[in-house]
């Protein structure tokens, strides 16, 4: 099943890439980055939203599964946020001649990146497995306060980075849709894979932990 997702996501991305380079190319040429930049943005926001929902679920149910999904979403979302910032930076250099400028939208997406780096640092530095999920869930909820700001600033506030681009052919809309679909599938597969790995890791470390605790009590 996971393999099918992989293949489907690969095919969708390939097809959209081919279309972007041929029938669906936009003018001027540097605007073609929209086929990578916008799907990456969508995926990172979706990942962080899932992280937020899983954090609430983990606090409500105390089920470890939600914590594993939240951790996976944090890691995958950060990868997409990195792609978002990198492609954005390349576009800024091509279109405006600077790598970065302190416009609100650029600030807010960089802010998002730092926020989830902080989330992963926090996750890595909590020793207690039991409390880890709970504390990370709390941070995941506070961190999400900033996500709507990024979304609102990207859509509704006039800025240097304003979606000026409108698709004028059906091919472009199709290629754009395929690119977003492919990226979302890729994100889903990665989250699934990573959550499974975290679950297995947790299962492996559990007997070792109880053994250590046992010797502690014996002493």
């Amino acid at each position, binding site marked *: 099943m996971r393999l099918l997702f992989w293949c489907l996501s690969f095919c969708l991305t390939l097809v959209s890439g081919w279309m972007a380079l041929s029938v669906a190319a936009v003018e001027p040429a540097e605007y073609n980055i929209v086929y990578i930049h916008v799907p990456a943005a969508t995926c990172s926001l979706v990942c962080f939203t899932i992280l937020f929902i899983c954090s609430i679920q983990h606090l409500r149910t105390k089920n470890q599964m939600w914590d594993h999904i939240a951790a996976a979403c944090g890691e995958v979302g950060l990868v997409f946020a990195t792609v978002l910032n990198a492609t954005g930076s390349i576009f800024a250099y091509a279109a405006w001649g600077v790598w970065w400028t302190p416009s609100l939208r650029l600030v807010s997406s960089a802010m998002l990146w730092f926020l989830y780096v902080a989330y992963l640092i926090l996750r890595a*530095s909590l020793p207690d497995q039991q409390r880890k999920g709970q504390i990370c869930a709390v*941070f995941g909820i506070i961190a999400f*306060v900033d996500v709507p700001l990024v979304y609102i600033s990207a859509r509704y506030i006039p*800025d240097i980075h304003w979606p000026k681009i409108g698709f004028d052919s059906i091919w472009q809309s199709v290629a754009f849709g395929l690119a977003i679909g492919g990226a979302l599938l890729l994100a889903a597969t990665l989250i699934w894979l990573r959550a499974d790995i975290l679950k297995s890791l947790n299962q492996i470390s559990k007997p070792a932990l109880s053994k250590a605790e046992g010797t502690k009590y014996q002493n």
Partner: protein
Amino acid sequence: MSSIADTIRAIFVKDLVTEFRAKQLLPTIVCLGVIIAWIFRIAAQAASVDVSVAAGAVLFIAMLFAGILASDKGFAVEQENDCISSLLLAPVDAGDIYIAKLLVNIVVLCIFEIVTVPAVLILFKVTVTGRWLRLIAVLLLGNIGISSVGTLLGGIVHRTRAASSLLSVLVMAVLMPIMIPAIVALLLLFGPVVPQAVGAGTFGIAGDFKTAIGYIAAFDAIFVTVCWLLFGLVVGD
């Protein structure tokens, strides 16, 4: 209702009395704030720009560092002799402990600003005649924002291996939505910056003073509420 007020007052007074007797935190943060302002002043002089432009950012950075140190100290003292366990064993709501700690941090930051703000004003040759009330409003809202997140995250980091060193990263990352409008508001108060210049491109979201204040107040309300609700999950076992 009165029992909640009593709880908050008891913890609030305990923490303030501890601080005034030990005198550990306040001298440190006041010195830190003045040194930060002084170093930036020298740098601004070297760059030979209009120095008052930097004043707003410098003041907020000093506040931020002071707030982080204060939040860290608030829980560091509770770790000694495992005082936090005794505090949690008391039949009080964790939210009340949060409010008390929050108020202590706000008061500490206010005392810090009584010294640091005049220092910044003098060093950067800024005059705020007739705009004192606006300045106090920005500072107070900034204090609430920094303390709200700082108090909760201070409780979190004392459970980690990295402890205090982690706090600054977490607080600064979360506080960005408050930092941007607060610095814009201070720029408009202090500097030769006209609202049109600020509003045009860089920070369109918080162009004029009232909008900036509105943003800080809105995020303060969100952060205080969320942190108050979540505090019990962080400290409780």
